[in-house]
């Protein structure tokens, strides 16, 4: 990935040239997109090649905007998005190499699954559309209901039909917007397996998700998007470590909060304690350090712990922290 193994401020690093052997290089070069006064994507650059990359971020972070810009369905207000060196905006020819699974559920309900995928194959100029459609439907395990109108499909079936329609022309690049939405656990496993196989064949797969665990299970590399900015990019484990090592705040209820606060603040791993509304807030730089320190200190001070609760564990706060880190390094 162009943004380096791990970077909390990847937008400042220029993407390398799209030179992936066999193709499938996706590059976003200083791309911004605004809608009126709202900045949806802010100066984002990255470059990815074959393999699975996860686009992680909370709802409304700008993931769909980025995928739509990459798919040539949104004009970048600034910067350029390319697939194999070819700008995607206003160039339908890129769709020969690119497949897209949009997030929107709407599908042509008057077609059945087989007709829909065959239609997609024809539009893509596939030589034997019927055979390609059969293969694609088989790959997503939808052959059994292929003759049923899409209007009667469940959310999971629609998701798989969309995937079949996106991969029917065997694209080198596959963009998927929240592909796991509506899938049951078994279908999720199947989708993960399918995407891994496709990546194993040398395809470039970029999928978005707001669920950390989903990305963790599938992606080798991740791009973290928050508030329209690229908060971090690189190897998943590195980003995970960065997320874990950020400052954490815990709320503690004990038999003697004041005494516990004075004992804890003596440790260098704790950089703030606060007593408000009968509760003790503790801020630490290291998650692990507090979990080891707290029981030891409480026992030594003869204080009973009633409740220990992290207060800022939402993904938003994690992403916010990563963006803050990036800003701090500028």
């Amino acid at each position, binding site marked *: 990935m162009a943004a380096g193994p791990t970077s909390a401020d990847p937008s400042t690093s220029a993407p390398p040239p799209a030179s992936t052997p066999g193709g499938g290089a996706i590059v976003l070069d200083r791309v911004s997109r605004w809608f009126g006064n709202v900045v949806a994507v802010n100066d984002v650059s990255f470059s990815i090649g074959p393999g699975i990359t996860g686009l992680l971020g909370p709802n409304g972070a700008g993931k769909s905007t980025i995928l739509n810009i990459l798919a040539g369905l949104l004009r970048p207000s600034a910067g350029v998005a390319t697939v194999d060196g070819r700008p995607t905006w206003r160039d339908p020819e890129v769709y020969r190499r690119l497949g897209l699974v949009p997030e929107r559920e709407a*599908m042509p309900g008057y077609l059945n699954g087989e007709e*829909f995928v065959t239609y997609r194959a024809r539009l893509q100029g596939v030589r034997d559309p019927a055979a390609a459609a059969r293969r694609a439907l088989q790959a997503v395990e939808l052959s059994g209901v292929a003759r049923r109108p899409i209007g009667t499909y469940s959310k999971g079936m629609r998701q798989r039909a969309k995937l079949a*329609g996106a991969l029917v022309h065997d694209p080198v690049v596959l963009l998927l917007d929240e592909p796991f939405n509506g899938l049951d656990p078994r279908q999720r496993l199947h989708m993960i397996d399918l995407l891994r196989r496709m990546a194993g064949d040398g395809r470039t797969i970029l999928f978005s998700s707001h669920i950390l665990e989903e990305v963790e299970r599938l992606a080798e590399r991740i791009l973290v998007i928050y508030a329209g900015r690229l908060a971090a990019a690189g190897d998943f484990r590195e980003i995970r470590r960065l997320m874990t090592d950020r400052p954490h705040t815990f709320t503690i209820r004990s038999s003697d909060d004041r005494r516990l606060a004075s004992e804890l603040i003596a440790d260098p791993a704790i950089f703030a304690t606060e007593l408000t509304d009968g509760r003790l807030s503790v801020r630490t730089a290291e998650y692990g350090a507090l979990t080891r320190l707290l029981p030891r200190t409480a026992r030594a001070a003869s204080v009973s712990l009633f409740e220990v609760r992290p207060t800022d564990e939402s993904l938003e706060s994690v992403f916010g922290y990563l963006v803050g880190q990036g800003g701090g390094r500028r």
Partner: protein
Amino acid sequence: MILTIAVATARAVLGRRRTILLVLLAAVPALVALLARGSGVSATETTALTIDLLVVRAVLPIVALVLGTAALGSELEDGTAVYVLASPVARWQIVVAKLLVAIVGTFILAGVSTLVTGLVLATDGPSLGLVWASVLGVLVGSVVYCALFVALSLVTTRAFIVGLIYVLVWEGALASLFGGTRFLSVRQYVVGVANGIGQPPGAPFGDTLPIESALMLAAVVLVLAAALAVERLRAWEVRPAD
């Protein structure tokens, strides 16, 4: 490729309910013609008046409005256009396919409506000639209206309302009142062609554009509207909410 898209569009646009409603609308002039038959006025005048009032001013623009704005507009509105647009198909081919469906659908309904209405009323040679001339006029009208409404669906998400205002306010009132605005009225092209080919005695369609002007203006509007539609489709973007 055009045929592939056209077939899918026809299935999307001509849903059962919509088709039944449009067929019922197209049948109204013929039913009225049955009542107006033998009303005493000359066959040519009655035929021209009924076709003009009920088909050219009502059935034709309304059917074209429904099919023209639905052919592409519905897909753009609900987001399913992505499945066509995310393919290596030239945008002009998509526009042509959508136009073809709208035009053929409109002409079948409005053309048959004209023909049946006319045949119910026409009793002599001149009035029969006028019926066939009107069918050709309606063909020109189907092409131009559909091109306008397909282009309109790429300009605004409220294409149906804007189109309805054009038909009712502009064509229905202003273009009839002010002769100078005739060249901007599709209805004038339709009756201009019908008048020019049928050459009915008297002036049953009123003072119309000469057929040459009507055809030339129709061609200009068609080309401009189609070019606008292609250009808008090339730059079409999914909505932010998507």
